[in-house]
């Protein structure tokens, strides 16, 4: 097991449904499932007024609830809980900017976009870009590239009629 700032990030609903998961450490599917199940249960069992940190196995869990969604990160023992909380908040802000006051449904239906944003923000468990503006710019440009690629390709074109 090697050191890594953020070991994984989970998003889940109040009903315990997983909405997004990103693993920065190599684990088998079985372990991932077990961890996320355990953790979702532990966090949902906590009372609303409790603090955002808990010690879980040998990791520190930092979580925060935004509306109906829980955002949860697992960090190493020496890591800074407050900056992790800030990372979560930054990600929520990014989602909010991108979708325009984001809600759970946005993330469900555009889950790949949520991943793309996360991937521009964090890489391999480390924050790669601290400027919100830069992250959004990169996403917009990549999206633009995608649209360019999609735009000229109509059904007719593909059949070879044009």
């Amino acid at each position, binding site marked *: 097991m090697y050191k890594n700032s953020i070991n994984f990030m989970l998003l889940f609903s109040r009903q315990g449904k997983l909405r997004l998961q990103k693993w920065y450490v190599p684990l088998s599917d079985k372990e991932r499932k077990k961890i996320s199940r355990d953790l979702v249960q532990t966090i949902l069992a906590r009372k609303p*007024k409790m603090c955002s940190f808990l010690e879980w196995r040998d990791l520190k869990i930092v979580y925060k609830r935004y509306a109906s969604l829980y955002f949860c990160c697992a960090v190493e023992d020496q890591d800074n809980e407050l900056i992790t909380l800030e990372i979560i908040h930054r990600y929520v802000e990014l989602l909010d900017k991108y979708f325009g006051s984001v809600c759970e449904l946005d993330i469900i239906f555009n889950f790949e976009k949520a991943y793309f944003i996360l991937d521009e923000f964090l890489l391999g468990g480390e924050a790669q870009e601290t400027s919100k503006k830069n992250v959004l710019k990169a996403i917009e440009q990549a999206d633009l590239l995608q649209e360019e690629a999609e735009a000229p390709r109509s059904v007719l074109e593909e059949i070879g009629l044009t």
Partner: protein
Amino acid sequence: MALKIVKGSIDRMFDKNLQDLVRGIRNHKEDEAKYISTCIDEIKQELKQDNIAVKANAVCKLTYLQMLGYDVSWAAFNIVEVMSSSKFTYKRIGYLAASQCFHESTDVIMLTTNQIRKDLSSPNQYDTGVALTGLSCFVTPDLARDLANDIMTLMSHTKPYIRKKAVLIMYKVFLKYPESLRPAFPRLKEKLEDPDPGVQSAAVNVICELARRNPKNYLSLAPLFFKLMTSSTNNWVLIKIIKLFGALTPLEPRLGKKLIEPLTNLIHSTSAMSLLYECVNTVIAGHDVNGSPFLPPFSLALFLFLRFQLCVQKLRILIEDSDQNLKYLGLLAMSKILKTHPKSVQSHKDLILQCLDDKDESIRLRALDLLYGMVSKKNLMEIVKKLMLHVDKAEGTTYRDELLTKIIDICSQSNYQYITNFEWYISILVELTRLEGTRHGHLIASQMLDVAIRVKAIRVFAVAQMATLLDNAHLMTGNVQRKGICEVLYAAAWICGEFSEHLENPMQTLEAMLRPKVATLPGHIQAVYVQNAAKLFATLLKNQEGNTDRTAAQETSQLMIDRLPLFVQSANLEVQERASCILQLVKYIQKLQQKDVEVAEEVIALFAGELNPVAPKAQKKVPVPEGLDLDAWINEPPSESESEDEQPKAIFAKEEPKHSRARHTEVDEKELAKRREARKQEQANNPFYIKASPSSQKVYQEAPGVEHIPVVQIDLSVPLKVPGLPMSDQYVKLEEERRQKERVEKKKKEKKKRKEKRGGRGKKHDSGPESEEDITPAHMVDIVTEEMPLADSEKLPVRSHRAAEALKSPAEDGDAESPASQEPKKKSSKEKREKKKDKDGDRKVSVKNGNPTRETALWMYIYGAEIDIQGNLQDGSQVVVSVIFENKCDNFLKTMEFNVLDSLNSKLQRPEGSGPHDGLSVPFQLPPGVSNEARFVFTMQSIVMPQKLKGTLTFIIKDSSTHEKLDFKLHFTCSSYLITTPCYSDAFAKLLESGDLKCSSVRLEGVNMPFHHLLARICFHHHFSVVERIDSCASMYSRSIQGHHVCLLVKTSGQTVSIDAKCDEPTLLGNVLDEIKQTFSQC
């Protein structure tokens, strides 16, 4: 061609996209699994099409399903296809799917190397970006090795967007392929001064993480980081740099000195709590390392201490904050400080006690943890009083139980170091028994026992309290919810019985102990009641006979005789036994009493002797009497054949004649000396042996004894009798008064002294605050440590059986067994590997036999050891064989068919409708170098004989489209029909006695291995379990899938192993024994 495209596009219009899938799942809440399985079928269809858009859509949907927990590993190849699309839209989806679904064991990853390399060098920075992002999730050592150079080049890319990602991913590459670190490091270092702040911060991140793993190599970068630290304004970067310095300073103390200034500035100036917290933590951690602060010189240490105080002050601000998170972190950091600087934390007691009122349980628990370390003699009573208040108002049993255990932990820590008044503690314990529904009755009970035994002066008080508890026992047993607390009665009854001479009103207590209601208590408590009623009875007799009032004594006996039958009827054996024993005794006493014989002295002798706590190493202090040589044999050493005589041989009819060798006829003096030396050597190395060091004996002889025994001081300012249940609070007050008095006395004394010593250096600090040492305890615990010299009465315990028991070193029993029980485990795994290896060998031979000329394209491993028997005991005839196929050639293998020639006895299970000679198709294809496992089920008529089945495997090599054939043999041993089944020794004995079993035996010569290895081997290879093992003899058991019992008795002497066996099926037994013989002949 055009038609195909049209078809694809039209299909696409009807395909579900991701949104449709999500919507569908939400609309099928009741039958989600069914809906998804139809969706997966659709996806499989879509993946078969050539249209990349359809495929990408399918892969996108799969990624979503993967998140929901469905297995999508079967589509790994399709994901690779989508990844390699030239269109960014699809590539993006492909890489996303790969980063979510692939891990190191995904075998198609190795197909991606070239594609990723191509994407990394793509002119489009976003292509490169997605490739890097994806790679960060699924990089394997192979990929890291192959792509390290490409990524290194990207670190100098013109676009900061790429540079930043390349730098970060380099960390992953280093982890997977450490050799890449050396060539890449100069460039990484360069990036610390990159003009783009994002790239710079990425480089700081990577180096910080590397330095956390191995700080020594990064010391040289300290000046550079120092510059960054003073110039950077980015909190994210600052936090990382501070963390890095935290890792470096223990190696270079001078760094600490330089850091103080900027760290202090940051602590004072920053508004970011995360940065403040990091600084404080680093300063604290700097203190942690080897207990020495950053700076060795004294003046600097003082300077730093002030900074340290600053940290504590800042933490106080955190804890006082209304934000739960800051409060929690503040407490967490405080607990780190507590380890090195308890004093600095103690001054914030008020604050931490306040946190006990917090609505957040995790904060309360943190505060409790802190309190444990904060107590002192001075504040213990106060803290516990606060905690008791919380116990009363705590809602929810978990938190209350936590409080309870914490109170006991706090009070009992390091041998009750902080308790000055044990009456107070007993009162606290008694108050705790009033808690509703706690689980920790046994904890309270053990504390009561411990204190009563070890603090002699407290016994009078404790007994009075316990008598009251016994009298009010109905309060504890009445409610079902209070089950746990009745454990306390165990302690109460024992204390009242053992120290009954202190009882105020023994008759009343005896009656309380013999109430009919007692029969509702758990058995083990009743047993203690009965036994201690007898002790109490003895004391009573003595008192009453002393009074010359014979009738009273007889009435007491009558009471016992009346009440005990209730316990004689108890269903609990222990209670029953004790009760009937004591009942008979009392009846006999009554008979004697009627003849006017005085019995009290004799009855009391039954329970004579005091229970003394004895130090674990007390034996050391007992001198060895002159003329006693502990190393000399008392009897002739036992001959090795002796152990065989003790074996339970009766159960096996046939017993081989023994080769008894008279080995120990004469041992000369020299030999004896040699052995003695060897034994001493062994003892010296054995940590469990008490060493006979000459010094300790001397200490003993010199110790005059009495003066050194800690004398229990009874402070009479504490009232020894408190009517009714105590209120612990009064002790707090009393304690205050007592201390006040002591202080006054001390002052007086000192004044006197000063008067006497006028003109001398009269600088006394009498008016200063009371220090820890000044507080003299009201009672002392009998602390049993090594250093304590023995009192005269403890020197040579002869009479008291209890003391003798306590002297016995527990380690001696334990250590003989543990290695024996652990070793077979280790061994078995090793053997498993060995076995696999030689099985592989077997296969190779048989494969080559089939095709002597052609080079084999495919290896098959058939793990004999792993012929896995399904425990299908109803059927009893199914055997599952796992076969691992490994493709050793460079071509893709497909359409594999596995076929076995059925015999009369065993048949390969084929799907319905297929003929008896049809092969079974293997459900996978094999890319080059890949291995996979398939399972086949066989039906067996009879399992008493081993079987060999011939079989063939046919397959097609993809490129040449040629059919290939491979012959093999499957060997079913009889042992593979056995299932390891545990068996208890009594069931085992019954089985052997039943007489239904036939016996047989085998003898193995020249087996040169320890007995437990031998057993482990039989257990592992032949699926037996050990029932019982006595020295070099063991009984073992196993059961076949058809329910045959197989019993073994294995004996070893020298290199000969004899196995006597019994089984209800002689043929099976014969074959199993042959196989066992085979196993040991190979080694």
